[in-house]
């Protein structure tokens, strides 16, 4: 009777909840919430409770697959790795390293992401390495780095229930997207904190708010400037903070003074009086935390939106104190970590620029290689386009599913089909894996050791509870085996703990991280530069990373594609609490799938009645890029003229409709605004 519990971290969103896997005689018999975990505090959402449900699903890949014409043939590791090594070496020497692309993964551990970018850079001399952070918080990294000098969430989740007096939540469906972060917000609300929600959809957290404002999608810069106008003109700005901690206020005012509430109302549809009330509430209840997610970033003006948020927080002195700050909620369990590890085309681990000669020299010495590339590599969407144009010839995709997650997926598929060679490493045969030449079976989160970094820079251990199915292997192990076959040095690690030792030597903000400390202390929040440093719950105390905080004023610009007569609705996309991203895990978890098994469109009843729609009924939704069919859900919690579709469903993929219009700085696609037409099906 061997009954024990293994402490690990949930594999879904970026909240980083702690959970125990209950093991009886080596078999998993259930999940328990970790009562003493600082974020989840003995609670979980429905996905956390079901986090282990897909691990033994019959669709799990037990052995490598090699394409034979239209079909896959099972193969040995020996055959599969030999083929991958040969093809990558051939394509690299024939077309140059820039013909290779690598996608790391926000689902995999820090150690695995570190190795993936090391393989691309040290092994093949290319910076063409990126991952799905590009599609969620690239504007956050760009915008906040410019304003503060660091692109991460400034504060910590537990501070919300301990210190925060006011929340401004925008573009975050918090109770569905980050349920256990919402738990801290609800606790604070119970204790009297104020809650402002500004979102085109009145999601659950909006229904619980003190003030809910409903802007037209794609008008965030306008209402953010409007809030600042009110705060400055009513004398509510924190003058001392502005004078001692920031620069560029005069330039900010030059721009912001052009956004009086009446003009903002015309652009956004938010009544002037409501905007004023919200501005006062935010400015007068300190510490105030701004919380945002994809609703802010997934725009062609994503970086501008983030800059405005940084401006607003600095204007009111809400930085460098507990419970305040600018808090981007990161979507994946380890998207923060994958960025920290340098799985980005412009930076090495800990955001050290690839273009800096001293960084290059340091990495070349550490990795014992020469000629690391200085040129910034391609981003996710650029890689896909380069594949379509024949400039990218081979791709290695680890645990990502761009054929469902990228914008305009019909185009993405055609591009990937142009590749000479595609390797996909995953736990299931995803839509993307089905296109691969070689599929390498990975181990899932509960089948390997490693670390994840949660949205609040919280580095935590994940622990192996079960062996992977069949011959599947941990991703770090697969990368090491491939690197060894390629004859590369520096990939012979005994295990993830040893990989983290190398990370700690090279990434200054992870300098004090070790498995020994993580096991003892439970978590560490970066920056944690040395073994005796306690870690950093909130950033920019007394001084910004870049010295002074910098106001970066921006003017409102319209979204790339606006509704017209032919496509009269604005489509916005997002999540449901019951599913996750492209559904590879949740749709194979029975208790999750049964809650939301079918793709649906949310539409306002006024629009529905004008179009003669029924509920339940079927509609066809058409954009300039594609069309899908789904079931109707009428709701007054969305603006008339706007429709919402969750992006989890391959059979009615929202991203068949979206466009690859990119933010010019962060290269994120505009998932949150495109123009569509809605037609009833089978109704007279």
């Amino acid at each position: 009777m061997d009954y024990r519990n293994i402490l690990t971290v949930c594999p879904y969103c970026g909240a980083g909840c702690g959970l125990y896997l209950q093991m009886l005689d080596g078999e998993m018999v259930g999940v328990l919430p970790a009562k003493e975990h600082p974020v989840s505090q003995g609670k979980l959402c429905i996905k956390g409770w079901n986090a282990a449900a897909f691990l033994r699903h019959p669709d799990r890949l037990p052995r490598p697959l090699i394409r034979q014409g239209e079909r896959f043939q099972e193969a040995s590791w020996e055959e599969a790795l030999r083929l991958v090594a040969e093809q990558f070496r051939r394509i690299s020497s024939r077309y140059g390293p820039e013909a290779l692309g690598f996608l790391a993964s926000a689902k995999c551990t820090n150690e695995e992401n570190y190795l993936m970018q090391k393989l691309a850079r040290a092994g093949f001399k290319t910076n063409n390495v990126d991952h799905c952070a590009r599609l969620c918080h690239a504007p956050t990294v760009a915008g906040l780095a410019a304003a503060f000098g660091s692109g991460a969430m400034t504060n910590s989740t537990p501070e919300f229930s301990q210190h925060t007096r006011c929340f401004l939540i925008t573009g975050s469906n918090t109770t569905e997207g980050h349920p256990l972060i919402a738990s801290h917000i609800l606790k604070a609300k119970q204790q009297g904190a104020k809650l402002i929600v500004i979102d085109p959809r009145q999601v659950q957290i909006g229904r619980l708010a003190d003030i809910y404002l409903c802007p037209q999608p794609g008008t965030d810069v306008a209402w953010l400037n409007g809030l600042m106008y009110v705060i400055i003109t009513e004398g509510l700005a924190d003058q001392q903070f502005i004078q001692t901690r920031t620069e560029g206020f005069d330039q900010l005012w030059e721009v912001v003074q052009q956004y009086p509430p009446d003009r903002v109302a015309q652009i956004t549809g938010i009544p002037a009086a409501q905007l004023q009330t919200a501005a006062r509430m935010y400015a007068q209840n300190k510490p105030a935390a701004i919380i945002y997610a994809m609703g802010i970033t997934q725009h062609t003006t994503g970086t501008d939106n983030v800059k405005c948020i940084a401006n607003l927080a600095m204007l009111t002195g809400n930085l460098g104190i507990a419970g305040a700050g600018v808090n981007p909620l990161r979507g994946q369990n380890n998207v923060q970590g994958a960025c920290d590890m340098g799985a980005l085309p412009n930076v090495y681990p800990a955001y050290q620029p690839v273009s800096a000669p001293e960084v290059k020299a340091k990495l070349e010495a550490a990795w014992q290689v020469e000629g690391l590339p200085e040129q910034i590599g391609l981003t996710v969407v650029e890689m896909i386009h380069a594949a379509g144009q024949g400039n990218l010839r081979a791709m290695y995709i680890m645990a990502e599913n761009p054929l469902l997650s990228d914008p305009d997926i019909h185009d993405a598929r055609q591009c990937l089909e142009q590749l000479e060679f595609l390797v996909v490493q995953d736990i299931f045969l995803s839509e993307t894996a089905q296109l691969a030449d070689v599929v390498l079976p990975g181990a899932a989160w509960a089948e390997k050791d490693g670390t994840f970094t949660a949205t609040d820079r919280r580095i935590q251990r994940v622990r192996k509870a079960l062996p992977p199915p069949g011959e599947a292997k941990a991703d770090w192990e697969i990368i090491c085996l491939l690197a060894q076959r390629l004859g590369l040095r520096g990939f012979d690690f005994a295990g993830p703990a040893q990989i983290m030792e190398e990370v700690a030597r090279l990434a200054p903000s992870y300098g004090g991280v070790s498995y020994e400390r993580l096991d003892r202390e439970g978590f560490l929040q970066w920056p944690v530069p040395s073994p005796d440093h306690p870690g950093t719950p909130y950033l920019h105390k007394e001084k910004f990373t870049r010295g002074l905080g910098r106001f970066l004023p921006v003017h409102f610009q319209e979204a790339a594609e606006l509704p017209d007569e032919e496509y009269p609705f604005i489509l916005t996309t997002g999540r449901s609490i019951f599913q996750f991203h492209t559904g590879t895990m949740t749709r194979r978890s029975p208790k999750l799938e049964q809650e939301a098994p079918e793709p649906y469109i949310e539409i306002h009843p006024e629009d529905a009645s004008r179009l003669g729609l029924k509920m339940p009924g079927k509609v066809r939704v058409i954009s300039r890029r594609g069309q899908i069919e789904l079931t109707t859900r009428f709701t007054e919690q969305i603006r008339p003229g706007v429709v919402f579709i969750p992006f989890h469903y391959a059979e009615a993929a929202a991203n068949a409709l979206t466009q690859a219009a990119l933010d010019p700085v962060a290269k994120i696609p505009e998932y949150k605004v495109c123009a569509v037409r809605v037609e009833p099906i089978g109704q007279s």
Partner: protein
Amino acid sequence: MKENELVEILRGCAARKLPELDGLLGILRTTEGAAPYVFHHCEELAGLVLSPRYPLGGIVRVLQARYPKARLGVVVRACDLRGLVELAKRGQVAPDRLYLLAVACTPEEAQHCRCQRPVPNPTGWPQVEVLGSPAAAAEAHPLLVQNERLGLAERWAFWRQEFAKCIKCYGCRNICPECFCQACALEDPLWVERGILAPPFPTFHLVRAMHMASRCVGCRQCELSCPAHIPLTVLYELLRRDVAEMFGYQAGEDLSAQPPLSLSLTEETTPLPNP
């Protein structure tokens, strides 16, 4: 008695008893944290602690299903003991092979939980040893007092507001030691429309509440697991009072008392008393 003194006494008893048992279920604290664990060796008992509390009744069910013959010891609090009593009545655990080390909660703990029954009451349980000194019942939850004063419409409004926060994690059910059904009414679209957030008011929560009548032993695990901080123990305590009033039944107090809402279709049933 302070918790650390109590833990020392508990470890002593456990060390004495462990050789006679096939395992002792309790909470093990290591450098990584504290979680349920089955102890086999006396050396391990240095890590045996009393808190945090986890729902051990549900784990006993799993262990006994796998090892029906094993002699299992369990470290319980008063509420865990009541929970095991109700599970035994429903055929989910076998009391004759369970040896209980029942620890009385300290006055601070009783106050913290607002527990009305902090002292283990082993009536009818075959093998149980009670440790610690009895604490007095705590004062009732202020929300309970408030709810009793509210009129029907105000009560309705209060709970509507609380349930609007629900994120449908099913944590209240998942953590509940008394919830063991294979098929759960909460997942049946006949009763609760699926995929809606917050779940439909009031069916989701009241269906669960009705199923807890005569079962809920007030262990608070549901409330502690609720991400939305819904005061579920207040709701279930109100229900427990109704059950006590209508049927004279107190869940978990006496192993031989039959729960009024567990009907047998093969035996003659007692009709409800006239109101």
